[in-house]
């Protein structure tokens, strides 16, 4: 496991209304920190890929186990080797936007 404060959990989920609520609801109900979410349909739009930026701490194992139990979550992978550029880029993008 790397020593960065955050890590990325990569999910494959059924692209279905409500899936996002179940996932974000899990984080709020169990008091897990969720620093960022990136989600988009993949393939023919049946599924979505979701990147969750989460704290890399002792609760990570519980986060993964609880995510695996969700009905619409088809796979959970902790992407230790993935850098966070994807989230940094979004930050740049959002930072530029004049909201």
């Amino acid at each position: 496991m790397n020593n960065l404060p955050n890590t990325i959990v990569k999910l494959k989920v059924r692209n279905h209304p409500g899936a996002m609520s179940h996932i974000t609801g899990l984080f709020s109900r169990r008091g897990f920190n969720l620093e960022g979410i990136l989600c988009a349909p993949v393939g023919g739009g049946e599924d979505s890929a979701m990147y969750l930026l989460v704290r890399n701490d002792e609760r990570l194992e519980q986060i993964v186990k609880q995510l695996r139990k969700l009905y619409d979550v088809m796979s959970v992978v902790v992407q230790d080797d993935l850098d966070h550029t994807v989230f940094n880029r979004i930050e740049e993008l959002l930072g530029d936007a004049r909201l």
Partner: protein
Amino acid sequence: MQLNGASLLIELLKRQGIESVAGIPGGANLPLYDALGQSDLRHVLVRHEQAGGFMAQGIARSTGKAAVCFATSGPGAVNLLTAIADAKLDSIPVIAVTGQVASALIGTDAFQEVDTYGMSIPITKHNFLVRSVAELLEIVPEAFRLALSGRQGPVLIDLPKDVQQAAIELDALPAPGVPDPAPEPDGAALAHMARMIAAAERPLLYVGGGVVASGAEAEVRALSAGCGIPVVTTLMGLGVMEPENPLGLGMLGMHGSRATNFAVDRTDLLIALGVRFDDRATGSVASFAPHARVIHMDIDEAEFGKIRRPDISCECDLRQGLKRLNRLVARAERREWKAEIEALRATHSLPLPEDASHPVRLIGSLAAAAPPDCIVTADVGQHQMWAAQSWPVRRSRSFLTSGGLGTMGFAVPAAMGAAIANPGTAVLVLTGDGSMLMNIQELATIAENGFDVRICVLNNGHLGLVRQQQELFYGRRYVASRFDARPDFAAIARGFGVRACTLALDRDEGALARALSARGPVLLDIAVPETENVYPMVPPGKGNVEAIWAQERNA
């Protein structure tokens, strides 16, 4: 055949083996009730949706099968939420079907519209908002499969009114949903566990509701007897060990006997089966079983390490896993450890209170007077803990209580479910005057259906467990824990058409036995001392070995 969504749902429920449904009709589920009325499903009209949820729980908890409740949209669905949350915490397979406003009105703040789907996410195992009548063909079997697979739990189906009314043409109905096969136990882990058990000097079994859910009682008893391992039980695991079994130490935790909690303190190998290291069982986690290595077997791998890191774990159905483990373990006598347990029991068991009016003595009298094969439902509060300490629970699924959520008002409607699912078996309700008032309207349902439910209200005129905590931990500042108005429960019961009597503190035990021996429904309002406390009690945040007794209060 041509069906509408409502009659399709009813047909699919019947294919799942559902015989009775509890609920209340309203605007958004009237098509469902119209279809129900034309079927041979039995419906029990409860008087509050929460009671419908608890009645379904009573069916599910007493039989192990999934059970169903209905509610309309808006207030009906919201009233159901408490019972669903309760089912979630105790892993009870309940299917809740709620009416919803028509699809086109969702999101418009329509009459009796709430976001039932959104509100039920954190308290269900899964939930569905049905978008078309065809989706029912998949969703209903899926709901049963989910509720019954792995760690069981509640599933909610939110069904808009237009979907109930929509027509569908079908050639055949889908197969009923059945539970998934459990994960195969890991043979290497089981072998390792067998070696750990052989090497342990003071092993201890810590068993809970998961053992009951999997039907592994015989396997637990065999492991205990074969290897000389004493057993401590959670509230949800009561009945796994017979009351007479010398290796059964009863309930551990906040109100467990000192003998039981000392045994946990002494063990060098804690074998945790179908338990989740709940705070009421463990007390301060840092001082729970401090000298023990831990074996954890459960159907839900997320429990491994959630509270306590096990040395080895096995994700499996407990019955399958224990059958295999029992073939691997070496038989052992463990005379020294048994002698130590006997000594703990001799000095630290729960003594029978000397005061004849003490509620524990009353519970003993009730157990003697009640039919021996009766099912007990216990409400929440002091009476629940006294019953958990002293009621002789002879088999699992015969002592039903709200464990995880601790919902007052559970016992009366749960008893209705136990009664309808177990015809010929008496159901005894142990409740308090506080809990009784939280679902007292169900006396109407009980009278209407003639359920053999015998309600014992242990009446101390207080929210007793609150009063106790205020006495012990809040400087005897009693706030909002005493009832100044003391309703006449017997008169109320008679008003509902239920036989009733009032028994004073200096009652005649014969009168108690007579009142309890006849078929219900009946309500006994039984006076108990107002200021009696449940002991031992582990102060919140303390270790289980720091439990206090009456004479030590405020020390």
